[in-house]
């Protein structure tokens, strides 16, 4: 999993996201941003840093996003509840209609859980996340007390 997340950081760096890398890997094959975003929705809950990077990219590239393509791909192989969180958070900073359209097709997680898996694994961190859960995450059935805009 660490390898996949590292590759996603490389891809976001190539797509212009503010990623601090030890070294850029020239062998990373370019992919459409929508494809990288869909894969990222599967890994956001494993990495806060990855979540804030893709969120920043979405905010800055709303005009470049093909919402129909992103939705179709996310339904096939991504996570619609995580995409909902990302679009909701992006909307707070950049109220572009594309985020509203995307959110209207996203679905909350099936049950209320901690957003980040590491937080869920720590009794102290999960208690704090539950006590200070942000409404934005609650809308998507997640508990999370942190939201970072880069």
């Amino acid at each position, binding site marked *: 999993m660490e390898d996949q997340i590292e590759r996603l950081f490389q891809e976001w760096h190539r797509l212009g996201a503010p990623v601090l890398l030890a070294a850029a890997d020239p062998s990373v094959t370019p992919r459409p941003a929508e494809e990288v975003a869909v894969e990222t929705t599967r890994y956001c809950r494993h990495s806060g840093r990855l979540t804030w990077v893709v969120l920043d990219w979405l905010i800055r590239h709303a005009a470049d996003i093909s919402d129909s393509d992103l939705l179709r791909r996310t339904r096939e192989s991504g996570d619609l509840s995580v995409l909902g969180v990302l679009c909701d958070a992006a909307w707070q900073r950049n109220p572009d209609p594309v985020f509203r359209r995307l959110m209207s097709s996203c679905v909350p997680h099936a049950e209320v859980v901690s957003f980040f898996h590491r937080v869920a694994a720590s009794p102290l961190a999960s208690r*704090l996340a539950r006590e200070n859960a942000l409404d934005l995450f609650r809308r998507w059935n997640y508990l999370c007390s942190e939201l970072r805009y880069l």
Partner: protein
Amino acid sequence: MDLGLARLRLYTLGKAEQIAMKIVALREQDLEDLELLLPELLEAEREILLRIMQHVAPLRPDWAQKIRYFLDLERGWKIK
């Protein structure tokens, strides 16, 4: 750090200080960093971390309690 400067006093953060700050913050990325930092902590650095916890206790009992709880109950340290 003593660099012979007249007006500046420089301090460096060691691993124990970083760990203490990350436990207090306890964001997802801090938990990720703690996974890397805690296993490589030397015995001497472990003692420093416990001293930091005791040092901050009168100033920020909530921070000290957080550090104690995390190390004791989640990481299995036997803190007296």
